């Protein structure tokens, strides 16, 4: 990715410049040289399925459009004004943020711990890799139905059976009690998706040059010191990446809640995306649903823009 040759003109962003960056006058480049022709199919799909819906959704959020796409009128910012006053927007937004907080920490930490373990355990390493990554390959529906119908039901579910085996009979409503429902969804999500972070960490671990460890060992650093002073600092960039990806993924929570609790009990687990779905597809208010989506989009955009800035600042400070 990073190698550049001066022999063949690489596709460059600024036309009218030679390979070495010097301005070239009077040369009309052939249009294929821009590489546009190669990315055209992608661009068409991108425009059709991402750019256009984004723009039309923004347009719809300014109207009273219904699900059937007929009879919407321009209402200006009314939908946004209503959304800001709507307590359900705030409560479901809070549920989304709370889920993100609860799930990101274990997903990053457990992913790291599993990667360290797999990296250390030289025997049957393929087995650890497979078994920790395998759940990630399952579709969300499969995972959620598994937890909903086999693991979490009170009484006969695996969770309660395990507790019973150690002499506890709590009869916890894992998904029906407000105190546990969100935690159960978090636990399900961790089991299901931690494999992805695990894989990113494992790749990063394998990329740490062995000579660092050799040098440290010669200097008499023990395993603990090596972890603390070599491994973790070398993983800093990966952690930044994993955290950003995880926060964005967690913010987009929908499937697990939709299948396992339907947003209940008493809407205590309903995420913002489900509220958008309810307003749009059961309340038929596509205009309003679009406005709520855009408020959420603004949040996601802020997170994805602010986080790299923060990590860059940190990196710069560390370099000083």
């Amino acid at each position, binding site marked *: 990715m990073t190698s550049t040759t001066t022999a063949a003109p690489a596709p460059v962003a600024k036309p009218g410049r030679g390979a070495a960056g010097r301005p070239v006058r009077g040369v009309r480049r052939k249009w294929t040289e821009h590489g546009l022709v190669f990315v055209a199919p992608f661009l068409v799909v991108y425009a059709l399925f991402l750019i256009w819906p984004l723009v039309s959704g923004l347009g719809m959020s300014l109207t009273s459009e219904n699900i059937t796409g007929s*009879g919407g009128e321009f209402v200006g910012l009314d939908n946004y004004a209503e959304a800001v006053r709507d307590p359900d927007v705030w409560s479901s937004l809070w549920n989304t943020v709370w889920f993100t907080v609860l799930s990101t920490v274990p997903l990053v930490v457990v992913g790291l711990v599993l990667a360290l373990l797999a990296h250390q355990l030289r025997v049957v390493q393929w087995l650890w890799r497979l078994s920790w990554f395998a759940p990630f390959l399952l579709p969300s529906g499969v995972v959620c139905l598994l937890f909903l119908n086999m693991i979490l039901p009170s009484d006969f579910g695996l969770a309660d059976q395990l507790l019973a085996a150690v002499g506890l009979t709590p009869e916890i409503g894992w998904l029906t009690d407000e105190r546990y429902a969100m935690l159960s969804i978090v636990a399900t999500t961790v089991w299901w998706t931690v494999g992805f972070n695990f894989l990113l960490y494992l790749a990063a671990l394998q990329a740490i040059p062995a000579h660092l460890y050799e040098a440290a060992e010669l200097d008499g650093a023990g395993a603990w010191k090596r972890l603390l002073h070599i491994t973790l600092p070398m993983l800093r960039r990966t952690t930044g990446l994993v955290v950003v990806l995880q926060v964005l993924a967690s913010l987009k929570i929908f499937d697990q809640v939709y*299948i396992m609790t339907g947003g*209940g009990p*008493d809407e205590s687990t309903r995420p913002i995306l489900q509220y958008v779905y309810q307003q749009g597809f059961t309340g038929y208010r596509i205009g309003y649903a679009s406005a709520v989506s855009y408020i959420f989009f603004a949040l996601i955009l802020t997170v994805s823009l602010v986080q790299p800035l923060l990590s860059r600042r940190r990196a710069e400070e560390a370099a000083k």
Partner: protein
Amino acid sequence: MQPPLLSRRRALAGGAGALAAAGALGSLSGCAAPATAAGPGQTLLRYWHLFGGGDGVNMQGMLDDFRAGHPDIALEASTLQWGAPYYTKLGMASAGGRAPELAALHLARLAGFAPGRLLDPFDLDLLAGLGVKEEDFPPDIWRRGQSGGEQYAVPLDTHPFVLYYQTEVCEKAGLMSGGRLRPISGADDFADALRAAKKATGQPGLVTETLGPDCITPWRLFSSFYAQTGGTVLSPDGKSLALDDAKALRVLEYLARLVEEGLMVRRVDYAGSIGVFNGGKTAFHLNGEWEITTFKTTGLPFSMTRIPALFGTAATQADCHAFVLPHQKDRGGATNEAAHTLVAWMLKNSVAWARGGHVPAYLPVLDDPAYLALKPQSEYRTVIDDVALDEPAWFAGSASRLWIELGAVFSGVLTGSRSPRNALTEAKARLRTLLDTRNPLPGAAS
């Protein structure tokens, strides 16, 4: 994405955990009813419905019988997933004017389904020619199918909230007389009956869904008993709030007391409530009559009766399944006639439909010996004159915003997370929000 196997939608479609065909058949791509070629000389008739579980089996059987008697009609039936997704699909198909010829709809949702824009009116002369007339129906239910002077829905049945009772437990608790449940008069009497049942078995006397995703039973409970006080939730035109605080509090406090005293199971979801009643140690179960198939299948000794009058009248919460004609740009001709033919045939043959627990809306069937022989289905047939449908509002009716939101609020009263007063305040706030929201799908007449 697959919905849960035991979701309320599936469960309500008849039979908890019944694998409705919805999952398999609900994946219609696009929004138009697929047009396939009928055979030579045949008229194509496409029919969408949302009946799964026991209802689905009954409906399939009836459709097969219809096909056998009408070789000139190529009937194509699609079972779609019960609930909100069904109405979304139907609405979008109708908006494009490429809808199926005939569809099922919950009557209380008619106001929110744009009659005149998304639905075409029935041809009453055509129906009369097929032997189906207005006077064959309870007047209230027939009227609910009207909008702007046209008939947009023809009711097939009413499916009320009923009282299931376990005959052996009730016998043991001394609640039976002459092979039936002794009459229950008033709220205190019902609480006494529950106490007697609890004494006999050591279990709470009543089980009904109190929580779970999109749980609706708490709303049905409230709605039934509140209707008995003579109160209405909305004004008759469905445009303003009419909730009477004192009456609503009486009902909510009563329900809260039943749970606190341990006469009613506090935390149980829909499937769980079916399971508990099936366990055979619980005297009473409150639910819609559609679970009859489930309990008949398991061989539980049980019977059914109307919800007793605890707060005055014997009103009970219900909705009705009805037939509608989704909007087609060029509705008419042979296909439209075929749709009317199927509707008339279904009504006249609704004894078969009544097996699933529903009370036929077509009055001549109510006196049919074959229907009267259905036990316990015919035990509560008189309810047809006392059903309390939601007032006509765009956010009301089966699987509507109203049901789901208030179901969640009243669930809190049963589980103990909300006081009756707090639930009342919250319910009113939600109703006001819904009332303040413009109907997103206005009909031609509104």
